[in-house]
């Protein structure tokens, strides 16, 4: 406990002595971790959008013109027997056309056709959308009745792919930023070490262990990491709150993630990464400094 207090007070002294480098380090960590957090939030939201598309998916089976009423009810029974099918609704071609005309009033389609140009169809809901492709391929085997099977899966698939690429891009960027940040943190702490070379020499001569000498510098790294990541978290919170407000106004149908838990997990991981960066920076600069360092010999 005594030595922890000592480490912290020594770390604060060290940071004060090289305040400019310290601030540069903190700001660099803030910027890097902010970008890291932005990528995490983007991929969280893309996944969320893909999921919400997926959960609203329906399969539409368009029936051939030749299908009779009895065949139709037979087919409906057959569909209901398929795995994961929860419900089947029939939409006649006339109702489908009325809906279509209503949805696109600006096209003035009202009196264009005497008979509906659309086919009869079944709308099928599943208990679990994971199996949507299996059900679709099963439906396609009813060749004599089925004109076409459609579902909105392609968009969701593309969404998921897009979010995957965003994650890869983010990962590459975060690795590059991490290396750059480490480089700056290492140099900041090395500056403190050089500032204190004399003290380190004397500490070693009076019998301080290497671990004892490292203590204040590791605390310094942790403090830099915490300050930097707190900055990043504050900016992320501000930016995300702003985004939620804007989005709700302009694009209300896009489901922005507002779940506190998921967002907090991201923020906590930003802080953890900051602390890890600080410790790693301290250890790297120490391994170099203590190795390179040789005693002030007695002359």
């Amino acid at each position, binding site marked *: 406990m*005594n*030595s922890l207090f000592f480490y912290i007070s020594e770390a604060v002294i060290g940071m004060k002595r090289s305040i400019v480098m310290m601030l540069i380090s903190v700001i660099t960590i803030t910027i890097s971790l902010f970008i890291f957090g932005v990528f995490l939030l983007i991929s969280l939201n893309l996944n969320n959008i893909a999921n919400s598309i997926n959960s609203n998916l329906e399969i539409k089976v368009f029936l051939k013109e030749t299908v009779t009423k009895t065949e139709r009810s037979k087919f409906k029974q057959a569909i209901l027997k398929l795995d994961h099918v929860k419900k089947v609704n029939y939409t006649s071609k006339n109702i489908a056309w009325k809906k279509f005309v209503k949805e696109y009033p600006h096209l003035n389609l009202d009196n264009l056709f005497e008979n509906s140009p659309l086919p009869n169809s079944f709308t099928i809901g599943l208990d679990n959308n994971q199996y949507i492709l299996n059900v679709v391929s099963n439906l396609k085997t009813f060749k004599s009745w089925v004109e076409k099977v459609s579902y909105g899966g392609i968009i969701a698939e593309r969404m998921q792919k897009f979010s995957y690429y965003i994650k890869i891009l983010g990962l590459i960027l975060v690795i590059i930023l991490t290396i750059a940040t480490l480089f700056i943190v290492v140099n900041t702490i090395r500056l403190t070490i050089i500032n204190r070379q004399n003290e380190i020499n004397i500490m070693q001569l009076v*019998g*301080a*262990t290497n671990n004892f000498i490292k203590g204040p510098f590791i605390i310094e790294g942790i403090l830099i990491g915490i300050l930097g990541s707190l900055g990043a978290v504050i900016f992320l919170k501000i930016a995300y709150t702003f985004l939620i407000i804007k989005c709700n106004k302009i694009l209300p149908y896009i489901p922005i993630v507002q779940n506190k838990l998921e967002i907090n997990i991201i923020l906590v991981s930003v802080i953890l990464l900051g602390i890890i960066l600080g410790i790693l920076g301290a250890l790297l600069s120490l391994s170099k400094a203590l190795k390179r360092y040789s005693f002030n010999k007695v002359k």
Partner: protein
Amino acid sequence: MIKLKNISKYYQSNSLILNNINLTINKGEFVYLVGPSGAGKSTILNLLLKIEEPTSGELFIDGVSLLRLKDSKIPYLRRNIGVIFQDFKLLPKRTVFENIAFALRFYNYSRSRIRRQVYQVLDLVGLTTKLDCYPTELSGGEQQRICIARAIVNNPQILLADEPTGSLDPETSWEIMTLLSKINMRDTTVIVATHNRGIVDDIRKRVISINKGAIARDEEQGSYNS
């Protein structure tokens, strides 16, 4: 007890710095290391602190072989050896108290114990009034006494002094040497490397004279010259 057995030291340039030194110093002894500049006096002190390694030979402190001592154990060796430097090596941005307490920091002592021990050594060197001064506010002799206080604050068994009077006037030199004798009375082994002929001749102790890396003379109650 300090024991050097067939110690030789040379650098890659094959110039022999120490040549087959055999030496035993008993617990509680007071020893002068004398000899011309470049003789190898400081090298012997560096070997004892394991700042340098001998090229050949064996070296023991209290029966422990320094050659076989692991790097991670070096700090514990040094906690048992106080060192006094000619250039003091005090930290300019820290007070006298902090400079001395520096040598006690890693013992996990309570604050009051640290205060007490620092005060005791300051009393011994006669500088209790300078507790809160910075080294730059002190004279050379006072700085050297602070350095001595730091070296002995944790009661080491051995005290090494390299030219402790090198930059001091004769009167202050006397004070410092009397102080070292006083510390020696507490059963601390004291080894002083010095060029100070007057003091060696006046405060008679064992004199080991080194010349060109070899022991030229080893005399109880010796003088600077034979």
